């Protein structure tokens, strides 16, 4: 496995990026709302302040008396600022006739007939925006207008908003770091599971054990272990098959080598004839093994998509039995077929014939002379009456084959081939129980009319 690089997709990085993205988005919303709130609060405060000052001035008795026209007084405010939030308010006081009686601050003169209440006005030679509040006293003899430059109000708003945003600015990197650590810690079980999967050795019959028994991992671990078991079984089966092939092929070859080496020496005529007969038999045997291997290759070839057609299983069984009549007769064996007149199924006739031949050959090869061999096939009596079965039974004693020994477990190459053909037909190949006088039955149980994988 190649070493991961930074450019490779990473769950950790994705989670971190998404989390940080979400965090920044939330933070940006917070900043926006904080700014809006700051501005609104600053407006409210300013307006309240303007109104308070106006009311305060209307209650002050030191203002010039009514009807007394004076030159408006302008207070100088420079050098009097004592607080950051101290605002430069401007005040205008009129009498009932509109005569400006008193003024403070640097705001330009507001029109006397301006509407009572709050207003944002442009005033001055160079028009500037001012926020104003105008109000008459209760007797309607004096009118007061309090004004504040809008820039000053906005500065206050920005300051309030800034104060609200500031904690977020230094919290963001801290939260990001904490988030990264939390994600890393949270993903640790997943990383460990990933390492455990990477360290699995299929050859060594390992199984995956999650160090952290998190319930979210249960199904993953179970699935991986199931796959692992299947893989290990497949490997074991391949190993058994290789071992079986090696045995089946090397045995006749060894015999041929030894017999030819014996022939090199001066043997008597009888021994020579025996050696030559052995060589001939072993050559044929090796050829037969090669045929089996070819059959095996055929049965494994890409699922053997072609060759599916309607097969008469009973007819096939009779044809195979007829082919082995001579071989059985030479061994004083008896071959019989017990089947209905016709048993049609969808299958691959070539592979099915290979499977049947192997079962019959095994019965001929591994039983004593005089054995009765029966090929039986029929329909299942259970619910699925359309499903067929075929079995080859014999009454010969087989040495070295215990009843419980699984089929295709290193027993014979032929059985391995039958198992593969059965798998190709979604059928089950197994050693079946048999009624006396039979001692051994190998059976293929077909599923209900196996479908042609080619469609």
């Amino acid at each position, binding site marked *: 496995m190649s070493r991961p690089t930074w450019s490779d997709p990473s769950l950790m990085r994705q989670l971190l990026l998404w989390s940080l993205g979400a965090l920044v988005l939330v933070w940006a919303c917070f900043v926006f709302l904080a700014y809006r709130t700051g501005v609104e609060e600053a407006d409210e405060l300013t307006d309240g302040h303007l109104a308070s000052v106006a009311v305060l001035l209307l209650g002050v008795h030191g203002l010039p008396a009514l009807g007394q026209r004076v030159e408006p007084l302008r207070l100088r405010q420079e050098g009097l600022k004592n607080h950051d939030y101290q605002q430069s308010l401007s005040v205008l006081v009129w009498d009932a006739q509109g005569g400006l009686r008193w003024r403070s601050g640097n705001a330009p003169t507001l029109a006397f007939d301006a509407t009572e209440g709050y207003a944002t006005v442009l005033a001055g030679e160079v028009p500037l925006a001012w926020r104003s509040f105008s109000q008459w006293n209760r007797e309607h003899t004096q009118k007061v207008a309090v004004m504040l430059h809008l820039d000053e109000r906005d500065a206050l708003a920005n300051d309030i908003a800034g104060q609200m945003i500031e904690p977020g600015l230094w919290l963001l990197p801290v939260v990001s770091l904490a988030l990264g650590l939390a994600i890393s810690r949270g993903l640790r079980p997943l990383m460990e599971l990933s390492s455990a999967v990477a360290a699995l050795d299929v050859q060594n019959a390992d199984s995956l054990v999650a160090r952290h028994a998190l319930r979210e991992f249960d199904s993953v671990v179970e699935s991986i272990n199931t796959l692992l078991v299947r893989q290990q079984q497949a490997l074991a089966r391949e*190993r058994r098959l290789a*071992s079986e092939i*090696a*045995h089946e*092929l*090397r*045995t*006749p*070859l*060894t*015999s*041929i*080598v*030894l*017999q030819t*080496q*014996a022939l090199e*020496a001066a*043997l008597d005529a009888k*021994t020579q004839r*025996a*050696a030559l007969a*052995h060589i001939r*038999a*072993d050559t044929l045997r090796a050829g037969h093994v090669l045929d089996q291997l070819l059959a095996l290759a055929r049965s494994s070839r890409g699922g053997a998509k072609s060759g599916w057609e309607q097969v008469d299983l009973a007819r096939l069984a009779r044809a195979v039995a007829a082919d082995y009549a001579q071989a059985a007769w030479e061994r004083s064996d008896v071959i019989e077929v017990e089947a209905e007149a016709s048993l049609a199924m969808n299958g691959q006739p070539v592979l099915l014939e290979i499977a049947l031949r192997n079962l019959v050959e095994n019965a001929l090869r591994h039983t004593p002379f005089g054995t009765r061999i029966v090929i039986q096939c029929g329909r299942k009596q259970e619910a699925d009456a359309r499903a067929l079965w075929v079995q080859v039974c014999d009454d010969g004693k087989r*040495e*070295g084959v215990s009843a419980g020994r699984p089929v295709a477990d290193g027993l014979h190459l032929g059985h391995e081939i039958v198992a593969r053909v059965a798998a190709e037909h979604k059928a089950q190949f197994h050693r079946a129980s048999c009624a006396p006088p039979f001692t051994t039955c190998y059976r293929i149980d077909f599923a209900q009319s196996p479908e042609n994988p080619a469609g």
Partner: protein
Amino acid sequence: MRILVVEDDAGIAEGLAANLRQRGYAVDLCESVEGGWSALCRERFDALILDLGLVDGDGAQLLQRLRALPLSQGSAKAPLPDSALPVLIITARDEVEQRIAGLDTGADDYLVKPFDFNELDARLRALLRRSAGRAQPMVRHGDIVLDPAARTVCRADRLVDISPREFAILLVLLEARGRVLSRAQLEERLYSWNAAVESNAIEVHIHHLRRKLGATLIQTMRGVGYFIPKDEAR
């Protein structure tokens, strides 16, 4: 030298037997674990050639049973079977793990089929040599040099014409130097079960050996048997 071959394939078993007999070994054949075990319990063999895949089980079972026995003292009268019997496994199982398992079970050597008979013979000789406690491939006794590989005998650097059976008797006696071997023991080591043995065959071969290698080489202990005294005893 008497070899037991436990092999279920008739072609291999008979091919091995024919080749071994040509090299002067006495060979007995068995085709099953049980057959092999009963042969080992009945007769004394110098080596066992064992196939693993047998009709009634795994040859390793036979080997395990053999090695599980208490070690005999190597005397001619030691109980049968001899747990230290040299064993050469011949099998089609060629994976490293299988070889290791075979050797760990107690095999002395492991040969994968197919093999050249000459290689099997060389390995068998090495086993027999180690079993006899010899490191050298040649057997030397005085001015006599016996070469088991070439199956030749030289006396005072001159090749002596010797028959396979005479060679086998000489080798057995030389391997057992200082010990008396009875005629029955010699026959047991030199002839297989079904070999037709003349009643005076051993005497005839001994007589020929004395004629070719010197009358004093093989000593007779009347009523007991024959022996070759050790060099240093001379």
